[in-house]
């Protein structure tokens, strides 16, 4: 994708964000806003719900797409992302732990606990990958999905025992309808981390060439792995704490961008962030419109789009993505 297309793509995303501001149960129209016909209630809906929701969508979308990219570079596998590597499930276990032990923790502390859990889970995943000989690239996401399954089984068991299944259920499918002013700001932490990822983009590209190449070029492979692990876990935890699981995003977006423009992250990360934001906006708008006045959670819409895309990757492009 040539650089000159970036601006139009950015404008398109901004347009999607504007649409997202004015779609919902209560009709708030941009024209009323400017003509002064909008009443106090309209303004409140806009500022307390729509604006936070839209910002959250943009930040979560770009964050998860970039987290997925970094995971793929670290695991050197195209099929890995936070929801196929145990990262998301570990964050869920962390959330449950908070609910059980200290339910009144401030949201930032909840996020940190979830981040610590997801970091441990992802590190476990990466060390399993190192320990077992992998004959096939498909083994990697399978190992991740199995690990995730085991972790979420533990979560479900305790949630069941302590009657918390319902709270965990709400978390399991990403839903931005719960996002309100005062309950999404933690996502700015995810945003700061995606900026950090961009600053370190070249290091992640080199790490994506493997340990031997990295060492040859004088890059401390372990340090970069750790940095990547921190970014991926924190971003995932921020998103999971605010909106729940946003699946497959980190799989679709990085793969499409990589097919078109390759993996030099210095060039591709801005695109990945932008496309991630746009895709989540689209899926969320679809979820709001398709069955109005009811909503389909964005996690469900993405789940359908994402699993179809995953199948397409597995079947159609086996030769290339290997």
């Amino acid at each position, binding site marked *: 994708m040539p650089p000159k297309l970036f601006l139009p793509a950015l404008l398109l995303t901004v347009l999607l964000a504007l649409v997202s501001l004015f779609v919902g149960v209560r009709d708030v129209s941009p024209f009323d806003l400017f003509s002064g016909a909008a009443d106090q209630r309209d303004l409140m809906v806009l500022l307390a719900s729509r604006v936070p929701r839209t910002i959250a969508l943009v930040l979560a979308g770009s964050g998860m797409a970039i987290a997925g990219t970094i995971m793929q570079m670290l695991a050197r596998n195209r099929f890995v992302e936070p929801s196929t590597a145990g990262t998301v499930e570990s964050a869920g276990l962390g959330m449950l732990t908070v609910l059980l032990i200290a339910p009144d923790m401030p949201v930032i502390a909840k996020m940190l606990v979830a981040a610590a859990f997801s970091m441990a889970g992802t590190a476990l995943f990466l060390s399993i990958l190192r320990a077992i000989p992998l004959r096939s690239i498909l083994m990697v996401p399978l190992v991740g999905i199995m690990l995730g399954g085991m972790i979420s089984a533990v979560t479900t068991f305790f949630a069941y025992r302590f009657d918390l299944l319902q709270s965990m259920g709400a978390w399991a499918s990403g839903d931005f309808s719960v996002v309100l002013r005062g309950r999404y700001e933690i996502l700015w932490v995810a945003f700061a981390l995606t900026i950090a990822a961009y600053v370190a*983009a*070249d290091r992640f590209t080199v790490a994506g*060439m493997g*340990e*031997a190449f990295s060492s*040859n070029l*004088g890059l401390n492979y372990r340090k970069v792995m750790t940095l990547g692990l921190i970014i991926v876990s924190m971003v995932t935890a921020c998103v999971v704490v605010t909106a729940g699981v946003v699946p497959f995003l980190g799989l679709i977006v990085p793969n499409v961008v990589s097919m078109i423009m390759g*993996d030099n992250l210095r060039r591709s990360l801005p695109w990945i962030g932008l496309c991630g934001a746009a895709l989540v906006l689209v899926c969320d708008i679809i979820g709001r419109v398709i069955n109005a006045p009811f909503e389909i959670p964005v996690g469900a819409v993405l789940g359908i789009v994402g699993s179809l895309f995953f199948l397409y990757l597995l079947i159609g492009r086996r030769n*290339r993505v290997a």
Partner: protein
Amino acid sequence: MIEVSGVSKSYGKTLVVDGVTLALPKGGLTSIIGPNGAGKSTLMSMIARLLPMDAGTVIVDGLDVTKVSGDVLAKRLSILRQDNHLTARLTVTDLVTFGRYPYSKGRPTLQDREHVERAIDYLGLGDFRHRFLDELSGGQRQRAFVAMVLCQDTDYMLFDEPLNNLDISHSVAMMKLMRKSARELGKTVVVVLHDINFASCYSDHIVVMRDGRLFLQGSPTDIVRQEVLSEIYATEFRVHELDGNRIATFY
């Protein structure tokens, strides 16, 4: 100078490199030859600190490779291993530019770009420079990797079977390029080779390994001899003098 002393490595119970002590002089082209499983690649990886050693030390220009920081060594010594498989999709230019990473840390200067252009030119990659590596043939990809290492512009360059996947004309061009780097640019080039005759025609120095040990070393005239080669490879060899080169046949 690369000083290898008492270096050993085992995988499980198999000893692959067994107490090798070896000094590779600065400058010139050194070939490492030997049968399969002789420990050539393992030794080379340990010299370039890609593999930890079980015993011994490797000193490059006075620097202990296991102790000096990675980015200092990356400006003195580079290595290309065999079987390079990248999951990351990079274009030829991207890959070669990353050869400048030790200097530029990802922000190439004008001078870095000149190095990149020169390396691409040396390896005849101009026509493919914007192609992705996964869209190239094995030989073209191998040349792109070599260009990256060349671009790293280190005093010591190690190549593990650089002729892999190359056809005859590109193999000859590659060996000429290595010799030119050694003679004209004063680089120290160390290559693991399987083709005895390339080793014979292009090397200044040949190191023979067998069963994890240093078996013999010397000039091509010392090593490329009927009785010596026959013993190394346990195969009947005949050595002919042709146009000033010693050519071995074994067919």
